[in-house]
């Protein structure tokens, strides 16, 4: 879809006019800046452990842009910042990584579920949600993100099975970055491709270049249309290569292939798309600067806001676990306050 400026020609995507193409660009840049700044904030001790998604922006933005506003996104930790594309404040996501309750959000405010930390367990949530919306006669579609490693989990399997049987309006979007921490895809599954798993759930499986945001967008849009038309779920496998450590705590040197990493960096998705837009003549130098400045400014404000959050009150340890904390929980809080106060 996106060419190489040489022998491979650029393609076009139906329904993506200049405005949409630039919106997509803004999303990519926002995610990229979020990620790059987060790494810096982590090094500065301003956020905790952080799961880097550098190089995954095309999968995230491409998929998210293929959805309607009323559609729901079920992210894994790798898509921690996907909510930015739905209006979740930067400070909220940064707070999440700062271990602060200001990182909580109401999924219904943004149609973005909470970040799922265990691998694959969000797949049945998304399947149940999509099925539930269908039962209510609403046209909502859900999209769930997960990694290549997640496809080995029983939760993935059971969720996909449910989605297939219920013909749930769901897009199962697999970020195949070819690593689960240090475990390569070849040690993860013997399947020829991950998309080949789709038939086992009675759904179409499509494979797409995860560094090509337009290809991702188009494949996802087709899946969304199919879902909305009542034709059930689709498995989308987007392929890339993880060019960064799994997370800030990871040192990939014992396992990674440095040449593949270099290649992946050369071929990274934001640069590819920028080249495409330039060739198309819809992106000027001034626009590039404007968008990057805008994103950086959002980050600056976001981290300031996050850091300005007051220390959370201990009552938040107890609140929200249950709709109404009962006597023993209230007594625990009172005792804790007494001890901390004294």
């Amino acid at each position: 879809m996106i060419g190489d400026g040489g022998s491979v020609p650029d393609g076009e995507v139906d329904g993506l006019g200049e405005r949409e193409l630039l919106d997509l660009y803004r999303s990519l840049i926002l995610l990229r800046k979020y990620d790059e700044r987060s790494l810096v904030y982590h090094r500065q001790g301003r956020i905790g452990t952080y799961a880097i998604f550098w190089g995954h922006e095309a999968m995230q933005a491409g998929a998210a842009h293929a959805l309607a506003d009323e559609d729901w996104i079920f992210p894994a930790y790798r898509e921690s910042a996907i909510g930015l594309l739905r209006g979740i404040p930067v400070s909220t996501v940064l707070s999440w990584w700062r271990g602060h309750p200001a990182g909580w959000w109401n999924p219904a405010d943004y149609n973005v579920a909470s970040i799922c930390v265990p691998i694959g367990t969000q797949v049945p949530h998304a399947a149940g949600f999509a099925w539930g919306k269908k039962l209510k006669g609403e046209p909502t579609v859900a999209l769930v993100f997960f990694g290549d490693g997640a496809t080995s989990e029983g939760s993935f399997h059971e969720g996909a099975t449910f989605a297939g049987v219920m013909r749930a309006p769901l897009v199962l979007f697999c970020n195949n970055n070819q690593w689960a921490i240090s475990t390569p895809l070849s040690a993860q599954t013997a399947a020829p491709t991950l998309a080949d798993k789709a038939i086992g759930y009675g759904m179409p499986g499509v494979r797409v270049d995860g560094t090509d945001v337009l290809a991702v967008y188009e494949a996802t849009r087709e899946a969304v249309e199919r879902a909305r038309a009542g034709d059930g779920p689709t498995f989308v496998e987007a392929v890339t290569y993880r060019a960064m450590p799994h997370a800030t705590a990871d040192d990939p040197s014992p396992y990674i292939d440095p040449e593949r990493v270099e290649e992946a960096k050369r071929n990274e998705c934001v640069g590819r798309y920028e080249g495409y837009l330039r060739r198309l003549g819809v992106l000027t130098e001034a626009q590039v600067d404007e968008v990057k400045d805008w994103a950086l400014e959002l980050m600056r404000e976001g981290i300031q806001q996050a850091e300005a959050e007051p220390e959370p009150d201990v009552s938040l340890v107890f609140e929200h676990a249950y709709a109404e904390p009962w006597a023993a929980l209230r007594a625990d809080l009172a005792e804790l306050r007494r001890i901390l106060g004294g």
Partner: protein
Amino acid sequence: MAERFLVEAVNDALHVEMERDETVLVMGEDVGRVGGVFRATAGLRDRFGADRCVDTPLAEAGIMGAAVGLCMAGWRPVCELQYDAFSYPALDQLINHVGRYRWRTGGAMDFPLVVRMPYGGGVRAPELHDDSPETYYVHTPGVKVAIPATPADAKGLLTAAIRDPDPVVVLEPKLVYRTARGEVPEGEHVVPLGEARLVREGDDLTIVAYGAMVGVAEGAADRLADRASVEVLDVRTLKPLDEEALLASAAKTGRVVIVQEAPRTAGYGAELAAVLAEKAILDLRGPVIRVTGYDVPYPYWKLEDAYMPSVERVVDAATRLLEF
């Protein structure tokens, strides 16, 4: 009021609540076409349609996980897990999501889901149809746990569970599904969560139990009647526990025997004993004795009567305590 078996009371509660609230949806393995292997969901599919009484794939984590998503889509799912020991594949979803999702949304979203399952031993069944898994549930933050012992409570607690904004696990003592019979109020009937039931009053000793063990406790109380005045307390809601009722009874009798089918170590009886050891220490006139299943796999059924707490074992414990 009609006389019903315990499992019929469950069925009744489901009918009434599904009628009352069209967001209540029953799901599980074999709950639809056949009405559940114990017929707890019989008639629901005919009455409310296959979309509200759903035969799911054979996938417990899928059931529990889909239920989380259904809540987010505005439903109140009531999940049947077919048997106690077949609920374990769903523990991961239960612990990491069902119990945590409200908290994770800062209290913004309700997860009013119910998990109900037949549990417990004594039914002459093949392996793994006899577990008493309440500890796994009761230890898990964010869920509540109820266990009825009577038909009326089976209806009332399940109704309360369905209406509760939080996830509730209801364990139904399958041993007495079709032996416990009693008056069950018609129509809507709520037994609030968190209130114990004083089965009978007594002055000398309290037997605390729940589920099918309430009957054993009563049997022991009968057997002891000529020697001691025995109080029987049915915990009924394990979480939140009605501490007041427990402590009041301990204060009155000073002697407590706890009966639990599950393996002893870190069973729910341990929690009851720990509460007493912390909050009733001056009231206790002797040790808190637990009569429990043993810390071994639930046995082949030829041996299950030896494994399960019996009237004899409870009487023995009570006698030791009375003579302490």
